[in-house]
């Protein structure tokens, strides 16, 4: 046995060496959670062999990689995926009802409030989120209390959240999956993960296989994601010059129709998305999932007025979570004048999400064609 199993070597050849690794951390989190310890996160947050001798050539890291399509059909069947944005039960514009959350969130604070609901009702033992370490560095944390969650909100959902949305990575990226591996020992058996499409895809593939550490993940909340941007000094200077902004004065970043930079003096600068596309990593350019199609609930600012979060309720579990949080008063839906306006706004929001999804899918096809040299 063994000859035919594709291993990390193939993953390196087919994904990492081609610049297609999205740094979701899935391969590493599995390898270390299983105490196989053959991999580690190396330079540039890319997975590398820590000890090649220890690799048992199980081939699981290869299978669960978001860029590898072996399990894609199974995933699609399992979640009843359909074009153009995956399966969903409802789309809503909602916001938090919590003053504290509202103060620190950027859009509607829906993610934070859903996490608070889950924690308060003991539906989860913890939430894997990322929070700001320094202005452009983020770290994954396991939020165990309301305070943890709200503290992550302050950055996750004012700065990082929107960074996630534009790909979420800016000059840093928070590989949240590796932090999942340590969970079981801490007696956390039900957790929620908030993540980008590649992270959620990796989790869902692990769940297809029924393997650790994904068995601990009860809920997945997915962020809309166009691309991950990595600004090196050159890119930063070029943007600063072209749009007359100083990166040190950025208070928050957001994306709706375009890339919105809010400066500390309150001024906002709108940058067309095509201007920042060039800073996206190839992995993101080759990713076809904008609206986080396999999450229980997907969220983002696109399609909602300021102060609201567009929420796509996808799975039965997500539906239960969303309606319960609504019923218990953790979040509220936007008020419309009448059903006509409601219908119109929802159609508009859906159209925007569909258009972004199409764009991302098309871009991925082109990028892959380019990479394959066709």
């Amino acid at each position, binding site marked *: *046995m*063994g000859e*035919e*199993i594709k291993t990390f070597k193939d993953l390196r050849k087919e994904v990492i060496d081609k610049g297609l690794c999205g740094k979701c951390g899935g391969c590493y989190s*599995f390898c270390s*959670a*299983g*105490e*196989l310890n053959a991999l580690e996160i190396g330079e540039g947050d890319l997975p590398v062999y820590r000890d090649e001798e220890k690799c*048992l*050539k*199980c*081939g*699981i890291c290869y*299978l669960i990689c978001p860029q590898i399509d072996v399990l894609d059909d199974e995933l699609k069947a399992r979640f009843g995926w359909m074009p153009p944005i995956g399966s969903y039960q409802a789309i809503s514009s909602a916001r938090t009802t919590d003053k504290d959350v509202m103060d620190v969130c950027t859009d509607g604070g829906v993610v934070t409030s859903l996490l608070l609901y889950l924690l308060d*009702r*003991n539906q989860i033992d913890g939430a894997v989120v990322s929070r700001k370490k320094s202005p452009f560095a983020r770290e994954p944390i396991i939020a165990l209390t309301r305070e943890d969650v709200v503290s992550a909100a302050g950055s996750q959902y004012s700065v990082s959240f929107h960074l996630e949305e534009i790909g979420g990575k800016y000059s840093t990226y928070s590989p949240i999956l590796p932090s999942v591996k340590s969970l079981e020992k801490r007696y956390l058996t039900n957790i929620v993960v908030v993540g980008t499409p590649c992270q959620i895809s990796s989790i869902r593939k692990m769940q297809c*296989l*029924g*393997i*650790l550490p994904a*068995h601990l993940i009860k809920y997945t909340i997915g962020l809309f994601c166009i691309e991950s941007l990595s600004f090196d000094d050159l890119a930063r200077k070029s943007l600063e010059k072209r749009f007359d902004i100083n990166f040190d004065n950025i208070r928050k970043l957001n994306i709706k129709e375009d890339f919105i930079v809010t400066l500390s003096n309150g001024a906002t600068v709108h940058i067309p998305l095509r201007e920042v596309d060039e800073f996206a990593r190839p992995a993101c350019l080759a990713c076809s999932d904008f609206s986080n199609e396999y999450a229980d609930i997907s969220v983002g600012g696109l399609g909602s007025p300021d102060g609201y979060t567009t929420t796509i309720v996808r799975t039965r579990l997500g539906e239960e979570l969303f309606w319960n949080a609504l019923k218990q008063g953790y979040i509220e839906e936007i008020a419309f004048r009448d059903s006509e306006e409601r219908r119109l706004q929802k159609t508009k929001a859906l159209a925007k999400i569909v258009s972004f999804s199409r764009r991302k899918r098309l871009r991925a096809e082109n990028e892959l064609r380019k990479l394959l040299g066709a």
Partner: protein
Amino acid sequence: MVAGSDHSVLVIGGGIAGIQASLDLGETGIKVHLVEREPNIGGRMAQLDKTFPTNDCSICILSPKMAECFRHPNITVHTYSEVKEVKGSKGDFFVRILKKARFVKEKECVGCGDCTAKCPVKVPDEFDMRLGRRGAMYFYFLQGLPRIPTIDKVHCLYLTRGVCGICKKVCKKDAVDFEQKDVELELNVGAIVVATGFDPFDPTGLSQYSYGRYRNVITALEYERLICSSGPTGGELERPSDRKPVETIAFIQCVGSRDVRNNPFCSSVCCMHATKEAILAREHNPNARSYVFYTDLRAVRKGFQKYVARGQEQYGVTYVRGRVAKVTEDDYENPIVWYEETRGSEMVKMKVDMAVLATSLVPRRGAVDLAKVLGVKLDEYGFFKTNPLSPLDSSRDGIFVCGSCREPVDIPDSVAQASGAAEKAAETVMRM
């Protein structure tokens, strides 16, 4: 070997009844084939934390008997095996047994557990009543015998998808064999003892108890695993929703039992196991207060009434006469038990931390199929049919039944019946 007998006996079911019957037969000098469907012998008794009315550790008194079965020169244990066909008649049965592939070479494996520790698959553990998780390569339970792990072929990634194979790679004895096939054994036996035991009744259909809907409503067998030190919480009595220590517990009796819509019979052991579980709650938490909601309190064996009195006097157990009408829940997931206080004839509700359902004992799944294979009759409830004056004889000559597969009984009764059935089987083969 006893003079005049070269016939062996087949014992079906490796719980306490089957184990006892095998040991008695073996001691008589008769060759025994003990067939167990699960990967290990031990049965339901292995899942219990303590036994009533002595509070003995269940596995501690069972383990020596399990070990004795394996050591006994006259007993051959066939685990992970099922009886597929029985032909012939009393004194000369021809039996076909399917031994399912474990995918582990039993002769090579030393039971070190390297493979189970590394199996990356995590699925609900049936032995822990699905409260914990196990790998696809797993030991059925901690003290299980033989100490050989088993691959669950439904969840194994190598057998289903051709990847992984970690267990084989980490096994220093090269004992993992993915090519292993099910094998059939053919036996010739003079008599058969059936000891297939019971399953707990699934209360999901009884919506008034809200089992499956509320997390803090659990079954008695789940409770046994929760308080067991080898169970999913390591023996901490914590309620499922928030893992807080449990203080007030409602034990709801006759769930599915003595109920014409479900099982009209009395399950016989529940009054006593509820008493035991209530006593153990206090042993786990000195502040625990238990309420047993009973229809009639049936403490009919030696020492049982005294055990109940001990519970009342020393362990804070309150017995409330009244059938529970329904269980609801407050905003903090505390179950609320609605019942009729029969002394005052009024409807009362009580808020508790956790509710434990004493579900009926019903025949094991597969009892109908086994009865067909054996050519024996079942009674109206699905238990093996017997007559009042020959309570251990099935409807077919040479086939005897004992333990909870013939009616719900406790451990001492199972053991007594097992010895009786073994004697009848011995008598049958020794007369041949």
